[in-house]
């Protein structure tokens, strides 16, 4: 009897749960499930990347290949007198939590990500966030402009080359796809610097100059936008060969309307698929671009802190980047559902 009761309770409980889920509309249920999945993935993937980078950065110390001596501590020691040396070192190590073992350090650096300081930098002994947000603003502004520019370059060009047939336009189209996939963006940036130096336009970054933001964005946007062009050209051509297009033509729908109303939406599919790589590329491509134009962004910060062995800064930036990456993959799924509601993600 008791057993049966328990079972019954379970059934009732599960029914209640089902009722709760069922009472929501299917859309809400679907989106809440998706959001839950996103949060879980966000946490898990970011944590995994964080751990891998932490291990990577700590490997030389764990294997005793290198003496643990952050550059910030070295600087402090240089200013301290002979008698103070030991005390200064101890104080600096305790602010960086280096007086504990690796595992405790690991938890301290996770805590650093959450408490708003992003950890204490190994090279300045200040919170990483002091420097980070300003740099992130510069980098993400450039990233944002370049994403918009790449769409502005890619979509019209793709449609143009898809509709036009002929030797010259085909050759141009293949030239564009070659540039997209085989010329790294720093080469384009160097060319832009060279051209600007010839014309007499500025090519060194300063905060107030809008032109420099756009110039850097162009260097990122050209390969990406040309990549768009290639994908769009193929997919628009494919769409034009579909039967519904012929039907629309027979019915007398104007070419303009066919393109805008019928072709473009399904043709945008591969572009959306490509989207997270673009966003990620806009932020990470900026590492070399920032180096060319000497832009004080996160990319420069990453390289510099990496070279100085500034672990916390590297971890903070990597975590941010991973976070953005996962979110941009999620946005991709959203856009795909928006374009084609039949596909509701996996």
């Amino acid at each position: 009897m008791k057993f049966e009761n328990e079972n019954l309770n379970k059934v009732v409980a599960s029914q209640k749960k089902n009722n709760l889920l069922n009472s929501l509309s299917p859309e809400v249920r679907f989106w809440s499930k998706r959001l839950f999945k996103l949060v879980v993935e966000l946490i898990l993937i970011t944590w995994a990347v964080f751990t891998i980078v932490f291990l990577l950065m700590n490997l030389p110390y764990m294997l005793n290949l290198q003496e643990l001596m952050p550059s910030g501590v070295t600087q402090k020691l240089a200013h301290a007198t002979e008698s103070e040396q030991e005390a200064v070192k101890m104080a600096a190590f305790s602010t960086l939590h280096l007086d504990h073992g690796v595992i405790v350090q690991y938890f301290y650096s996770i805590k650093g990500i959450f408490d708003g300081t992003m950890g204490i930098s190994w090279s300045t002994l200040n919170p990483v966030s002091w420097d980070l947000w300003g740099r992130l603003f510069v980098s993400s502004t450039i990233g944002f402009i370049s994403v918009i520019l790449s769409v502005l370059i890619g979509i019209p060009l793709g449609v143009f080359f898809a509709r036009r047939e002929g030797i010259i336009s085909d050759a141009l189209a293949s030239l564009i796809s070659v540039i997209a996939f085989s010329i790294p963006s720093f080469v384009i940036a160097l060319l832009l610097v060279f051209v600007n130096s010839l014309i007499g336009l500025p090519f060194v970054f300063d905060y107030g100059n809008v032109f420099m933001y756009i110039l850097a964005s162009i260097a990122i946007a050209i390969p990406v936008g040309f990549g768009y062009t290639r994908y769009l050209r193929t997919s628009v051509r494919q769409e034009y060969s579909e039967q519904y297009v012929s039907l629309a033509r027979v019915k007398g729908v104007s070419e303009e309307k066919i393109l805008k109303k019928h072709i473009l939406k399904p043709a945008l599919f591969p572009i959306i698929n490509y989207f997270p790589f673009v966003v990620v590329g806009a932020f990470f491509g900026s590492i070399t671009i920032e180096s060319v134009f000497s832009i004080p962004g996160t990319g420069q910060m990453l390289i510099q802190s990496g070279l100085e062995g500034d672990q916390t800064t590297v971890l903070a930036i990597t975590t941010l980047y991973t976070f953005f990456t996962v979110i941009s993959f999620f946005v991709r799924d959203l856009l795909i559902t928006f374009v084609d509601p039949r596909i509701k993600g996996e």
Partner: protein
Amino acid sequence: MATNDFKFAELKEENSDVIQTKFVSTKKEITSRFASNKLAMTGAILFLLLIIISIAVTFLPNYDTGTPNSSLMDIPPSAGHWFGTDSTGRDLWSRNWAAIQYSFSIALIATTINIMIAILIGLLMGYFEKFDKAFSGVIKIMYAMPTIIVLILFSIVFYTKDPIKSFMVIILSLTFSGWVNASQQVRGSVKKTRNLEFITASQTLGTSRIKMLGVLFAYALPIVIVQYAIIFPRMVIAEATLGFLGLSIPDVPTLGNLINDARNSFLAYPYQLLFPLLMLALTTVSIQFMGFGLEDAILGKDGV
């Protein structure tokens, strides 16, 4: 109608329509399709030329990659130094061709290792359901992992002046995540072929798993070849990017190092940067053309 209106046609062998179809093997078909693709052939010839010249140049008397010469600094291209000299007076003609050799060898080794990892993981993920489920999380993490950052971190953390160790570090960092996309392609192909009827049949007859994996690999081979042409230029570019940031093998003329050497003074001496960039563009473009051609020929897609 009289019956003699009709006559039997004379049946002669010359008169009959003989439809002869020669059997063409897949290999021949692919080769001919590749050979008829002008762009692909241009790429292939360019690529071969680059390799041949880079080797042939070493036998010329003016070949000298190493010796700095303070009296020959920053000479523009001239009869003595065809590509000019760099800021320490080294001959850029020789260094550029040496860079092709170094960068190609790095890219070749890195690509081969990447492809081998991709085949292994792709086959296992495609064939064993459990492994697939277990490993898909890893793949997700690898996709979210910022490749360039990891590349940079690897070369920073393990930075050494020793050329051999540094070479290994570069290979290690290039093969850390270069295989992910290719492995997914192989996995897709294996998943497709393993549901074919003859595979199921031979599985029921008790063919060993290793033999089965071999067959599945043979079916994935076209994808593997195409992926080779896709990964190779990426590796060349990745090395150039690392070198550009000053993280390639130190003191060895690779494309990245040449670009890095030239970038600080390139406004004054643009030729120093122009030639390595040209070499980089020539290599990647030629392989890209070959890759597009291979894709067309093997997978039958109309790309570009």
